[in-house]
């Protein structure tokens, strides 16, 4: 099983969720995060003092899928989240050892 972790623009969340659901993804977990990459923060003024907002709000979407589906999830996320502007985000894929559905105790592919 793979864990696909995508850090994307908050306003893309709805679309990504819809696209993935359509494609049969059965679950996902979302966290509000802040980050920067190529898209650096910008400088703001608060009460006359300049400061840099280094971190911009992003949303991290975690989707666990079986190995064979990982690529198609990747493709869907890329297609849906891409605007071509910097700040579009990143996807990280990692391998999982094990996965359990708590309700039933099922493990592995069954549990996805």
């Amino acid at each position, binding site marked *: 099983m793979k864990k696909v972790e995508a850090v994307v623009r908050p306003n893309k969340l709805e679309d990504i969720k819809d696209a993935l659901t359509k494609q049969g993804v059965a679950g996902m977990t979302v966290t509000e995060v802040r980050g920067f990459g190529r898209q650096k923060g910008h400088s*703001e*003024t*608060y*009460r*006359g*003092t*300049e*400061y840099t907002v280094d971190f911009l709000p992003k949303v991290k979407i975690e989707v666990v899928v079986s190995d064979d589906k990982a690529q198609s999830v990747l493709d869907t996320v890329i297609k849906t989240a891409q605007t071509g502007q910097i700040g579009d985000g990143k996807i990280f894929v990692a391998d999982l050892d094990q996965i359990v559905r708590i309700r039933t105790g099922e493990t592995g592919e069954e549990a996805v």
Partner: protein
Amino acid sequence: MNTKTRLVVGVCALGLFLAQGGTIWAQEDSVVEVAAETEEASAPITAEITAETVKFMVDNLWIMLAGALVFIMHLGFATLESGLTRPKNTVNILFKNVMIICIGLLTYALIGFHLMYPGEFNGYFASSAFDIFNNGITVAPEDAAQTANLTSAYADYTWYTDFFFQAMFAATCATIVSGAVAGRIQLRSFLIFATLFVTFCYPITGSWKWGGGWLDQRGFYDFAGSTLVHSVGGWAALVLAYLLGARLGKYNSDGTPNAIPGSNIPLVAIGVFLLWFGWFGFNGGSVLSADPALVSLVLVTTSIAAAAGGVAAGLTSWFFGKPDITMALNGILAGLVGITAGADQMSILDSFWIGLIAGVLVYMFVIIIDKKIDDPVGAVSVHLVCGIWGTLAVGIFGAMAGAEQLKHQLVGVVSIGAFTVIFTLVVGIILDKTIGLRVGASEEQAGLDRSEMGMEAYASDSVG
């Protein structure tokens, strides 16, 4: 619980004992007392209703309402300050604001009011002023002379109304300080300072003018307290913020300041609107009667100055970058502080200019002061800078304008400033050397809410 039970039983017993004592002692002249409080005091009014007695009722009603409006300014300060500081210090700053009004009312009843108003301090410690156990918190009309204090023989309002209005005023002065020292002062040190400040410092300088003291006789004018309330609070804020030093992380190693954004801007807006609302009582009540022409003029000059200050600071910040709501809100307060000294002396156009300049001044000084002194809420810029500006403005604009008056104003600003600075320095340094002014670095980093209060301002459902 055992200790707790004992404590409670003890306090109750003490209270009952004193109450019984009080009751017994009151027995002697209870005829007078009760009568004075319930029947006879109101008797002259119900006995024969004349236009004079009804005018007394109206005047008194207005001053009572003005006192209630000034009271709500304490909520304004509380939300303003907790909105402009970080969430990890929110409970701490709320606690300070809550305690100040409570402690302030009590000590003002015990000492401050007597010190300031009958002008006892001007009489250099005439005995009765400090006979606090008889005249002190009791403030009951015990004899015929004092019963008169509840009629128009006293003023356009009763003795109690006088106390109510002035006590609410007094506590605002200490509250001004709490914002400037937010996030790093020890709670107990602050409370001790604030108590001494409202008990002694404010009434003493206040008596110089409003108690009929030497500044009053020289011709110094301060209608509702640009100097007597606001710059006094502002000086104390400046000195304490200086003694404390900046919050950790406020200045970089090269001395440049960092911005530490406020945690809750809606609370800041709520605070400023409530302060403006309360200021109708602060300035309007300072007419000390419900005189239609004067009170309504004061309400209009107050509003126009506030509006001009808000527009000026808002647009100035926009001109130099983005429209900064905290500046606009500080600008409103700047306009209010600025008009306070001469709210009854200005034409509408005068009040517009006073507010406009106050708004620009507050924008400038927030930035300038921030370079050296860490004042999270801009208390010094609002209350000290604009308090001075407003006081001087009485000599520049309006009915009293003139070089002579400007000189009187300067003398007032300097003398009251000097006393307040010295008072604050002495008390501040003593506190620093004894119990300490500032919390430890790790307490500060964790936030005062965690380290001093043991409570979070915003708890979520799921994570303990």
